[in-house]
């Protein structure tokens, strides 16, 4: 009887112990643990970008912190896209995470079903580090990261609003104020143009495909949009035509010769060689202007918002972010990596390399303000741009082909073609493109 009693007590104690251990285990599972996926390997495909250069040398820190081994491939944007599309279309389980160039791939990749929505992960305190702070990204940035159905599909790596670069030394010398409207900008261009001395008022992209974002931003400024209220393509609206006309007229009258083949590289080298007064492009290209080894315009470059049009003021925005593949076998581990790569510390690293980032805390960080290589008007312009940021290309699946269609119309407009006829033709092709690639729109 006594023995029986002892046995029961022992059993009870054992049960108690097991229960307590179980409860402890349960409690720790509800807490965030970096080591949770130790021993996993993940593979990442990323675009070549200064942001990657700033973060990837620190990947060993992540590997030490989590025990996850990260393999990554960095490729130029176009090649990276080819690789991602081929692997995702074949539902490869070995691609876990990737950087998407969201200005092109946001809708296409999501519609194809290649991206894991991150909403539940972001809400899960066991998967998201307590100091990650999703709300720290500006509202515009969170909005861009989110699909129309409220799924968060990527975490922002870098954001590149377009701004106006101008030669502040020349503006000061000639007593010219920063242009606030497109008309003022044209007036200034008329004054400053000096082709006899190989000096031109404006330079921006003329090369087809690359040039389309310039027009898109002008379209917004003239109050237009890619679709009308019925959802029909409307790039030949009066706003679209005015935007194309302004785009082509400025380059034809005040632009550098040969600009029809200029991508950002030719444009920025022209600006850095002191051959252009104003240059309109992504804010991320500014780093090189302040580099004395490459640039003749160090300290002479002013940074400001691109002038407003009759339809308002917008900063067309482009950039890259991290997504988790729908087909990945290690989604949670991959998610852990992308939250690490976009946490406050790494975002600060990206920002310090002269790239635009979307975290409020980083933009206000005294270290950043002190150590940033960029002048204060660059930082102010960037912060202002984020307030008026708008995705600079249509959210359709076939963005590349859209860019091509509009880009060719713009080149022909620079060469002196009839702008209305060109945009009508482009709109027709745009409609055919949608019928082919997104037939569900018309069902």
């Amino acid at each position: 009887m006594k023995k029986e009693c002892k046995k029961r007590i022992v059993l009870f104690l054992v049960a108690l112990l097991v229960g307590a251990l179980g409860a402890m285990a349960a409690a720790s599972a509800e807490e965030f643990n970096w080591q949770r996926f130790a021993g996993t390997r993940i593979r990442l495909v990323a675009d070549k970008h200064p942001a990657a250069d700033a973060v990837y040398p620190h990947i060993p820190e992540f590997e030490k912190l989590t025990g996850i081994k990260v393999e990554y491939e960095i490729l130029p944007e176009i090649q990276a896209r080819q690789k991602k599309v081929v692997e995702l279309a074949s539902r490869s389980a070995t691609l876990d995470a990737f950087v998407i160039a969201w200005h092109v791939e946001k809708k296409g990749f999501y519609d194809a079903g290649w991206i894991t929505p991150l909403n539940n992960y972001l809400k899960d305190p066991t998967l998201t580090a307590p100091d990650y702070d999703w709300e720290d990204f500006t509202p515009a940035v969170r909005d861009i990261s989110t699909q129309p159905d409220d799924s968060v599909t990527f975490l922002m790596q870098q954001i590149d609003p377009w701004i106006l670069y101008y030669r502040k030394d020349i503006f000061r010398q000639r007593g010219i104020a920063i242009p606030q409207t497109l008309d003022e900008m044209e007036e200034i261009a008329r004054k400053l143009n000096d082709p006899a001395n190989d000096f031109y008022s404006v330079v921006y992209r003329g090369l087809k495909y690359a040039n389309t974002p310039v027009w898109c931003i002008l379209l917004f400024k003239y109050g237009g949009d890619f679709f009308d209220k019925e959802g029909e393509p409307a790039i030949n609206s009066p706003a679209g035509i005015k935007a194309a006309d302004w785009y082509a007229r400025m380059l034809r009258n005040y632009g550098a010769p040969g600009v029809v083949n200029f991508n950002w590289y030719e444009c920025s080298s022209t600006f850095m060689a002191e051959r252009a007064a104003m240059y309109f492009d992504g804010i991320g290209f500014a780093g090189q202007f302040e580099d004395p080894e490459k640039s003749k315009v160090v300290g002479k470059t002013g940074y400001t918002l691109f002038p407003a049009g009759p339809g308002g003021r917008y900063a067309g925005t482009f950039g890259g972010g991290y997504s988790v593949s729908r087909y990945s076998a290690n989604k949670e581990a991959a998610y852990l990596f992308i939250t690490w790569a976009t946490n406050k510390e790494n975002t600060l690293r990206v920002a310090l390399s002269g790239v635009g980032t979307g975290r409020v805390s980083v933009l206000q960080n005294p270290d950043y303000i002190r150590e940033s290589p960029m002048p204060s008007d660059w930082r102010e312009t960037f912060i202002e741009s984020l307030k008026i940021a708008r995705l600079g290309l249509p959210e359709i699946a076939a963005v590349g082909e859209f860019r091509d269609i509009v880009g060719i119309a713009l080149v022909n407009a620079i060469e002196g073609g009839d702008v209305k006829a060109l945009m009508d033709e482009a709109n027709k092709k745009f409609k055919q493109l949608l019928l082919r690639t997104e037939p569900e729109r018309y069902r």
Partner: protein
Amino acid sequence: MSQTKIAVKSGFSHRYAPYIFPMPAVIAIIVIIAFPLTYTVRMSLYDWFMMSRALPYFVGMKNYYRLLFEDSRFLYTVVRTFYFVALAVPLQTVLGLACALIFNKQFLGRGTLRVIFILPMMATPVAIALIWIMIFHPMVGLGKYVMSLAGLSSLWIHSPKTVIPSLVMVDTWQWTPIMMLIILGGLAALPQESFEAALVDGATKWQRFIYITLPLLRPFILVAILFRLIDCLKTFDIIYIMTQGGPGEASETINIYLFNTAFYWFHMGYASSIVVIFLAIILGFSLILIKTRGAK
């Protein structure tokens, strides 16, 4: 007895040798050529937009119909490709022949000059394209300076009118040497007797060239033309690097359009149908040339 056995054995191997020996080559050809080709032809009958949830679906000849009857952009790329070839191949043939004749002569420094002459051929086309981009730079390029010395101006690859001739110039600069090398090989193999006979008969230099050198060189020149023709039709790297088919569509050849359709826009089925048409064009040209070579 033993002799009959051997006879039987050799009968067996004789019977099957024609199948056994070429087998590795046949397998290699099936894997490397026949399979991808059949697969591409099959793909060309499907509509497959890679960036969508929709799986490839069979559309029959629709891609071909659209390509040949509705896609004016494609037809322009065909015209442009022929324009490129029509400028490049004759130019390279004449220059290659002239250079071969020069380098066939004995003169001081011939070896060194020959090496320098074939250097462009050795370089990577991408590197060459990047150098020529700088030469054609509309503001700081050497091309602009040279033209200004002659009192002219040209935008080279930056104007729709001059872009293809400018690209032909780069292609010619790079690939004339191969033309020269093939013809030079031919020159070295020419029988000397005919020349000696002609010399005895009192033929002039010009007559010897027209009536003896050229006819004897004909097979070599045709081979060289065939090589260059196919390569020119397929030219991709320098155009892609230097203009990406621009300004606008002004230098968009079949190959560039094909590349864009497949790897920028991800219309794999449609791109496959372009591949098939393009292959037919190249095969057609090759057949004509091979026939011409056979005809005496």
